[in-house]
Structure formats: structure tokens, C-alpha cells
């Protein structure tokens, strides 16, 4: 009996029996899901499986009808809104790359930097040497140092994805939720993104939602397959992809 509370205590993110429905459609059906500190986890599943809804619930965009959502075993995320949750240390990358197109790459990162975000603090903010160093560091991580003064609108699709990941890094999150990071990327970019995420996961937990099985194989991590709002299978990529239910619901289609 102890195992459940132990899992909970150790967890960074803990979802138990989470359900939510929209107009009678059950987007999540008593979903339970645990992420440990420092874990890199991949999530797969057919369209409508509830992957994005799950992220919406974790980041406070949607409230669950029932269920428990805990961060670090203490903080009830269902009581918080997006800004609170972001400040707690959960970063989110959207499916469609969302960066500030009319700002330079540098400014995008400066805005994302984990500093006091109140109105007056931002009005009187001046760039400190530490902040500058941190931005430079992130720029080199996401391989955009040479384009830092260009507008984000001028970046390619793949580079925008990276910039968004860079912005998440600037937030210094404990947990990173990444929705389809390699959609629309070339093979070379996909491989580089896998490296980047592995690098990031060394210092924090990362949850990646992805359709690209090759990419997930490249990540080589524990995989959770969702279908119809709950967990279908969980384990290594080989284990999950050989599961008959997964083949029937997702891979076989």
C-alpha cells in the first residue's frame, strides 16, 4: 500500500484519476501519470487521445472535472492559473511554434528570462551582466548566437521551434512540456533536436509529445501511449510498440 504514496512523494508531477469532458466528450478519462525529477518522457497516441488536453490541465489552461494534479507532491495545480504555474517552474512549448515575431531573438529570450515579472519591475528593468551572460549561453545552446539581432519572424520553422525551446530554458523550469517539437523539421534538424532535448533533460524533467516514432526511438526513453483519454501502455519504446492494444489503437492505423 505504501507504494502509491511513495511514488507520489518522489514525483515531480503527479496526476491521478484526472477526468475532463467538453460537451459530453470525455477528453480525459481517469488519467493517471507520474513524472519523476530529472526524467525525460515521451508521450504518443492518436489524435484526440487527450495529449494536448493533459498539457492544458497541467499548465492551468483547463480545469479538470475530477482528479488530483500535484506538483512536487505539495502544490495543487488545479487551483492555479497559467502565470502562477509558469512561475512555479513549468514551461510549455506549443504545437505551433509561438515566439514573438516582431521582437529580435535576443529580446525573445530577455522576455522569457526568469526575473520579476511584475509591471513595475519590468518598467524599470535594466539588463544586468548575469542576464546578458545567461542569454548568450542559451543562444549558443539553441545554436542561434549568430542571428541574435534578427527578428524572430525571419527564422525558419525549425529555428523558431528552437527559439521557443530556448525561451523555455530561460524560464529555468523544473518541468518542460514540449508539444510536437519536430513537426515540420528536416531529418537533420530532428536529430539535432533530439540531442538538444537530451541535453536539457540532464538538469530537469522533460515531457515530449510526439508523433514521429523515429524521433522517439532516437530519444530512447520511457514512452507512455495515450488513447481515448487514458494510459494504454507505458514502458520502453519496444515494449510499447509491441503491445497489441497500442498497435490496434495507434500504430496499426
Amino acid at each position, binding site marked *: 500500500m505504501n507504494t502509491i504514496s511513495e511514488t507520489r512523494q518522489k514525483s515531480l508531477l503527479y496526476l491521478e484519476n484526472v477526468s475532463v469532458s467538453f460537451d459530453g466528450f470525455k477528453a480525459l478519462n481517469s488519467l493517471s501519470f507520474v513524472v519523476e525529477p530529472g526524467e525525460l518522457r515521451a508521450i504518443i497516441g492518436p489524435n484526440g487521445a487527450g495529449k494536448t488536453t493533459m498539457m492544458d490541465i497541467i499548465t492551468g489552461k483547463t480545469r479538470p472535472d475530477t482528479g488530483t494534479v500535484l506538483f512536487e507532491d505539495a502544490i495543487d495545480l488545479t487551483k492555479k492559473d497559467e502565470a502562477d504555474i*509558469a512561475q512555479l517552474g513549468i514551461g510549455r512549448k506549443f504545437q505551433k511554434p*509561438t515566439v514573438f515575431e516582431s*521582437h529580435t531573438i535576443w529580446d525573445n529570450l530577455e522576455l522569457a528570462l526568469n526575473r520579476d515579472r511584475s509591471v513595475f519591475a519590468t518598467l524599470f528593468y*535594466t539588463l544586468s551582466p548575469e542576464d546578458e551572460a545567461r542569454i548568450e549561453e542559451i543562444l549558443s545552446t539553441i545554436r542561434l548566437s549568430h542571428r541574435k539581432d534578427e527578428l524572430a519572424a525571419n527564422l525558419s520553422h525549425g529555428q523558431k521551434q528552437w527559439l521557443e525551446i530556448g525561451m523555455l530554458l530561460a524560464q529555468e523550469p523544473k518541468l518542460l512540456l514540449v508539444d510536437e517539437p519536430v513537426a515540420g523539421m528536416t531529418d537533420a534538424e530532428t536529430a539535432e533536436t533530439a540531442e538538444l532535448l537530451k541535453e536539457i533533460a540532464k538538469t530537469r524533467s522533460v515531457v515530449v509529445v510526439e508523433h514521429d516514432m523515429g524521433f522517439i526511438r532516437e530519444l530512447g526513453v520511457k514512452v507512455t501511449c495515450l488513447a481515448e483519454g487514458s494510459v494504454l501502455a507505458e514502458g520502453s519504446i519496444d515494449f510499447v510498440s509491441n503491445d497489441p492494444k497500442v498497435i490496434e489503437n495507434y500504430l496499426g492505423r
Partner: protein
Amino acid sequence: MISGFVFRALEGKIVVAIAILLVIAILVPALNLLTPPDSALHIPTYAVSLFGKYLCYALLALALDLVWGYCGILSLGHGAFFALGGYAMGMYLMRQIGSRGVYGNPVLPDFMVFLNWKELPWFWHGFDWFVFAMAMVLVVPGLLAFIFGWFAFRSRVNGVYLSIITQAMTYALLLAFFRNDMGFGGNNGLTDFKDILGFPVQADGTRAVLFAMSAIMLAFCLLIASAIVRSKFGKVLVGVRDAESRVRFLGFRVENIKLFTFVVSAMMAGIAGALFVPQVGIINPGEFAPANSIEVVVWTAVGGRGTLIGPIIGAVLVNAGKSFFTGAFPEIWLYALGGLFIAVTLFLPKGIVGTVQHGLKARKAMKAAVEAEKGRDEAAPVAQAQAAE
């Protein structure tokens, strides 16, 4: 901290614009007062008041641009804040009339005597005092914007829905101020002003000073707006405009950001209204008309939203056009205004200033590209040498 905030505001074009406004603030009154009426350089008093009016409109457009151009909130009710500032000033000017009204009542303004009121309503107290009235010029529009914004932004009313509510807000105020028992002069509003700070409102000298104050306040608000826009807060504002959810997921409280900007903008609009009223000599509920607020949007769009100079140029140009057309061809003015908005939307979506800026940038980029092309042959060995190291 504060000095950094202000210093950042003084970017090239803004310094030039502020300098021009300050020169105008001195030059126009000087040419009006110091030159003989038959001199070629003489600016007649009616023109001083007319230009002063344009400057007030420019300030109103600047205020709107702060929320619309930078934060993406299309307010179709900014005329309400302008009118409220105007009413606050109007109430002060009414109190200055004293017993010189038609009915000669030492306490009550004429319209209250006419309505058979026996004493001054509570909300008229304090307006004898200039400082109090000027505080109300900021407080009343600011408070309305705060209450309105508090509810609207917290419940995440966005886009066209928000625009419609702002329009409803100014319309509701229009209807309210039309009522005689509101205590603001009803249909006729407040007029027949005599003095401001002891100086006769109609006098040339007073008008010149009011003009100068309009130019100075516009320059001051331009400085504030520039400081806001160029701070990190300003970058967040543009972020809210372009990708609101991203800002939210970065941990910013979008509702507070919008609320702050909306209140600052409403206060600027209030200042514009307060300077407008003594120069035109009247404030009535017509200033709350929804069409007025929409006109402000047109000025801003014509000049270039999302630029600070644009709305100023737009407001002055469109209103100068309006003065000309309504004098020369009164029946076509509204068509011209409508046509102008359509033409700008179709052909100059960035407005005048936005298009010029865009053109300059494109030319610079082309030059840079040509330079790079030329320099490539010379630069190549250097790059190779660096790579070899």
C-alpha cells in the same frame, strides 16, 4: 532606475519630435502675440486655438495607440476618457464663473438654477480648487479605466468583444450625461466659461498659453509613452499583442499588464480632454458619441499604429483635412473620412509613418545586401583563416 527609464525614452526620432513640439510651444504663441496683425508671420488667434485643438486630438490618438498599437486592445471608447477629462476641466471652469452667470446665483451654475436646484450636488464640491480639478482630470478617467479593465481583462474579454464593450461604455455615458438630473448640464453641457486661474479664457494671451500647454503636455506624454514602450515592459506589451498566450505561459500576469496600460492611456486621454475644453469653450455629451471614438481609431491608423509619432501626425493631418473639407465641401467630408480609412487599410496598412519606416528599413537591408555581396570576395580569406585557427 528612473533616470534609466527616462533615458531609454530619448531615442533619436523621439528627441526630434519632442524638440519640435517644444519649439512650436514657444514659436506659435510668440508669432501670435508679438507680431502685428498685418505681418506675414502673424498667426491669428482662431488658428492658434484650432492648432491647439489638433494637439489635443494628437494626444488622444497617442493614448489610443498605446493600448491599440502596442498592446493590441482596440478601444472604441477612448472618447469617453477624453470627455471625462474635459468635464472635470469644465466643472472647474463653471465654478470660476461665480455670480457672473445669467441668473447671478453666487453658488449654483446657471443650469442648476434653471432646474430649480437648491444646493450644489456633492460631486461638484472641490472643483473650485484648480489642483483638485486637475487631479480629477487624471483620477476620473483612470478610475473608470481601472474598473472597466479590472473586469474585462480578468475575464479575458478579447478582440472584437472588448471593442464592442468599450463602444457600449461610451454610449452608456453619452445617454447618462444627456440626462439633466445627472447634474452635468444635460444636453447643453458646460459652457459660457469666463476665467481660468484668473485669466479670461477668451483672451489672446490665455489662448496662447493654453496652446503652449497642449504642446508641452503632448511632448511630456510622448516622453512617457516612449519610456514605456522602450522598457522591457513595452516589449512585453508587444508580446501580448502578438502572442498573448505565450506571454501568459512565460509567467506574466497579462491582465495586470493590460490594466496598467489601459489606465495610463485613459489618463492621457483625460489630459487631452482637459486641454481641449478651455480652447473650444464647451463640453457637452456629444463628446461621448461612439463616432468620435471611432474617428480616433482612424487618425491612429492613418498615421501608423504601433509607432509613437504616427498617431500624432495622423491626428493633425486628418483634422486639418477635416477643417478644410468641412469648410470647402461640407457635404462630402464624411465620405472623404470613410474613403480615407478604406484607402489606408487597403494601401497603407502600416499607416504613413509605418510605411515610411518599412521603406527605409527595406532600403537599408538592400544596401547591406549589396555591401555584403561586394565584401564577400575580400572577406572569404579572412573567414578561412579564422576557421583554420
